[in-house]
């Protein structure tokens, strides 16, 4: 780490930061709580956030729901979207960005509209989750519309290996079904209907795998 160039007036051996003699000038403005007239918040979003705030005894509780609303509107939590929510809620955008960045499902960077979260946690890993993730990544390669990521336990170990596709669970999936799902999403068709979670029966009601039932 080299000292800053430029020595002090009195002692040539003391390096001096330009802040001392010239002053540093920031290239951007700070951001406090924006006023509503400074941001262009879509009226429906403002109404929605205000309705969310009214559900709680303390309006701060509506932070995550408001961020969900921003993400639904803009595809991810854009800085501008965060500013708009901040203006409506009377918080600083820094606060909302801090909250958003803590959670896995709120994105503070642009992501594709179709979200595919492939579970790579223990039970799914045992049943091929890593390979499934690779398959999805390969199938969606180069497509900006798709966001594929590994994810921690989604609470669907009974259908391992599984993925959450646009907030719906599908499994157990085979490698080849990754490409199928991507194709279905692109075509606007129903995704892997037989693998959807809400179609499954209770485990105990599924025929018991007897001895020799699967070789």
């Amino acid at each position, binding site marked *: *780490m080299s000292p800053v160039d430029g020595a002090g007036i009195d002692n040539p051996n003391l390096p001096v930061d330009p802040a*001392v003699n010239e002053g*540093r000038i*920031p290239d951007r*403005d*700070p951001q406090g709580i924006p006023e509503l007239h400074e941001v262009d918040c879509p009226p429906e979003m403002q109404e929605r956030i205000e309705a969310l705030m009214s559900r709680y005894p303390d*309006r701060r509780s509506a932070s995550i729901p408001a961020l969900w609303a921003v993400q639904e509107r803009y595809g991810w939590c854009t800085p501008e979207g965060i500013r708009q929510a901040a203006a409506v809620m009377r*918080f600083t955008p820094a606060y909302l960005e801090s909250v958003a960045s*803590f*959670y896995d499902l709120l994105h503070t960077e642009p992501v594709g509209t179709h979200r595919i979260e492939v579970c790579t946690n223990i039970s799914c890993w045992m049943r091929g989750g890593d390979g499934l993730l690779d398959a999805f990544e390969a199938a969606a390669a180069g497509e900006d519309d798709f966001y594929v990521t590994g994810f921690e336990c989604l609470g669907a170990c009974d259908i391992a290996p599984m993925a959450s596709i646009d907030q719906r669970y599908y499994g157990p999936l085979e490698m080849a079904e990754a490409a199928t799902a991507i194709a279905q999403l692109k075509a606007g068709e129903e995704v892997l209907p037989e693998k959807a979670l809400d179609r499954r029966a209770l485990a105990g009601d599924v025929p018991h795998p007897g001895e020799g039932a699967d070789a």
Partner: protein
Amino acid sequence: MSGKEVTIVIDGREIVASEGEMLHDAARKGDVEIPVFCYEPKLGDPVGACRMCLVEIEGIPKLQTSCSTPVRDGMVVHTRTEQVKHAQSAVVEFLLVNHPLDCPVCDKGGECPLQDITQGWGPGKSRVIDEKRHFPKPVELSPLVAIDRERCILCYRCVRFSQEVTEDEQLQLLERGDRSFVGTFDERPYVAPFHGNITDICPVGALTNYTYRFRARPWDIEQAGSVCTLCPSQCNVSFTVRDEKVKRVITRDNHEVDDGWICDRGRYGFEMFDAEERVRGPHLRGDGAADWETAIGAAAAGLRAAGGKVAAIVGDASNEEGYLVQRLLRETLGSPHLDSRRSRGPAREQIVRLAQPELSAKVSDIDAADAILVLGTDPLHSSPILDLRVRKAIRRGGAKLGVATERPTALDGGAEAIARYAPGEASGFLVELTEALTEVGAPSSLGTSSKEGGTADAMGALPSSSAKRSEGAPTSVADTLQGAEKVVIVWGERITRERGAIEGLFEVAEALGLAEKDGSGLLEIPDATNARGLREAGCLPDAGPGLSEPNRSFYGSGPQKARLDGKGTEEIRAALESGELEALILFGVDPLRDFPDTPAWARALTAAKHVVTFSMFETLTTAASDVVFPLETHAEKDGTVTHPDGHLQRVRPAAGRPGEIRSNIQVLSELSAALGHDTGIDSQPSAFAALTEAIPFYSGITDADIGGRGIRWQDTPAAVRVPSASAGAPSSLGTSSKEGGTADAMGALPSSSAKRSEGAPALALGTYRDLWAGPITDLNPPLKFLRPSQRLEIAPSDAERLDLKSGEKVSVSQNGTAVEAEVQIKERVPEGVVFLAEGTAEGNANGLLNGGPVRVRIQKLSEVPA
């Protein structure tokens, strides 16, 4: 804390502690050191996040964090068992897992808690061979503070400071887990008036000041304590000095005054001690630098020639300096015309009443207050540290806040009741408040001022974050104050520019019974740092040292016949213009920048025959002066100042005086001698001795009493010798007696309604002293980015009516004078009122003020005829 005493046993020793006190603090009282990182009592409740302070408490199987465990009677604690040592070593090891080996190049080295604690409680050898976590480093967090995120140990002190002390909430934690880092929204700079404090509280070298990077190691420097005199907060500071130059300013933690914080102006405003514009020696108009003898001779000659038609205005001065100036004027020059205020002010009687100990509150009273009224000032701009104090009282003490000002304040968000009165209508508001307070039970519709133009309405408080309050239930200011046991009114001296305001304030104080209530009273925020000290030292047209009535005896045996009818600041100006006065001594004031009605002052200074100015820097005023003498800064001065709440504090020299600067006390002495009167005072001790003798209620206070923490004169035995307030109640309309030249006379000012110009709609103008508008910002390169340009704050409805957008340039004019400003639309500005800042280098609003409320005309700059 209940105050009850309990006994606990730590490491076999009995220690007496207060019930409810945190175990860590109790241990420290008993000389047992428990290492901590995230624990900082200044920041409020403990978080127990760093786990460094784990101790063993008998009866509890798991180790507990001592910072968050309140003591109970009979608690038995062990801090040096194997289990505890193992835990402490483990925590240090964990903190060092990702901490970079930057010590050789890190500013914090040598004064670093992480180094110290590693040395004392760490494992001694690293087992980590994996690569550590990386961040780009260092990054500009703000133009003044650099952040090195690799060094950060995520103790959250800085984030908690931003969220819970200053409540600006710009600094936050981002991401999660070991990817967490401290940052701002969208990588914007962290700009806030207190953000420099995070470099004080950061326990590692993650947050460093750009002004101090690589400038010194702790063994190169000396620390010297003093008091910052850049604003009435008078925070206690410690200067870091190397080779007789100030390199850094840090806090000196005085709970009674500053609660351990300092604002950025005080922290970074030291480069100016060496600025080019600094007056380094006396000089004469036109002739350039002169030696001391010549200069003093010239000054004396000019003053003598005025033959008693001389006045003095004092501003930035210590008690000793103020005392000597008033002696110079009264004894040596035989003139009664002097003042220490920028404009009109209360008469002597009222100042005496304000000085009554029962009526005055001290700063720490705010902590325990049940209700606080902020009146006529925005503490963030006028006395920044009080803004933090009020926030603390609301957040931790449960205090209720009422705000009554012309202009929206930074504290509005936490206020229960807000009242906006039109500019110049503070007295009207106070009358209504008194009525509301004396009406039993009736809820008041307070704050509606019917005066022309300014619509002030009792705005409902903005919803606060506290969960318990139901939103949308506005209470009036009176409701907030009524029934509270401890009430503190923080009020701005500015309101006394209006007639009737100080009387109105007394009526409110009486209606609330402040004098009878414990821990209650008035706390003034004056314009000048040492305003109170100067008043009590006698720098008033109608009062002498100790607020004594002017009488012939203290004019001593001076050559001139003593006169009693002293003129105040405004009258002095008028008299200079008319020629009634011929000479002027300006001590630490810059009328052309800081006083209302700049054109009038310019005329006055031109008309004056002889102007002697004492100034730290070259200003417009020094350019218009005949003799200019240098002034010491608060890092070079030796003297005492008096805090607005009565604390006498000591300013001590820390750095060397540049150039030919001499001690002001000495200079005033020599000047007096040159005029034929040797006071015999030429040093701080002798000046202080004379001062305490002359002021009855300071008598007996010694240097040792003041010490490093100050002493409140109201707490000394001499306090009973304060003059008593006159038996008769002050008249309610504020007509103070002309005798003695009160500073309250309105003067011949045109009534506002006559100024409404035809055609263009006129708006009422309110002004305020912006924190950053002044020479401190101009002359300190690190603060340059904060230099404010003139902004016209306007309500959205008015902006729409006048077809103005934020950022547009406009011309704001009144009675022939105009200033340029940039439009800034702000939601909370009341309709019909606009605000401009005083003291900006360009477009100074003081140019438009002519003593009373004014109305202004706004035109787009593009439409103003060339």
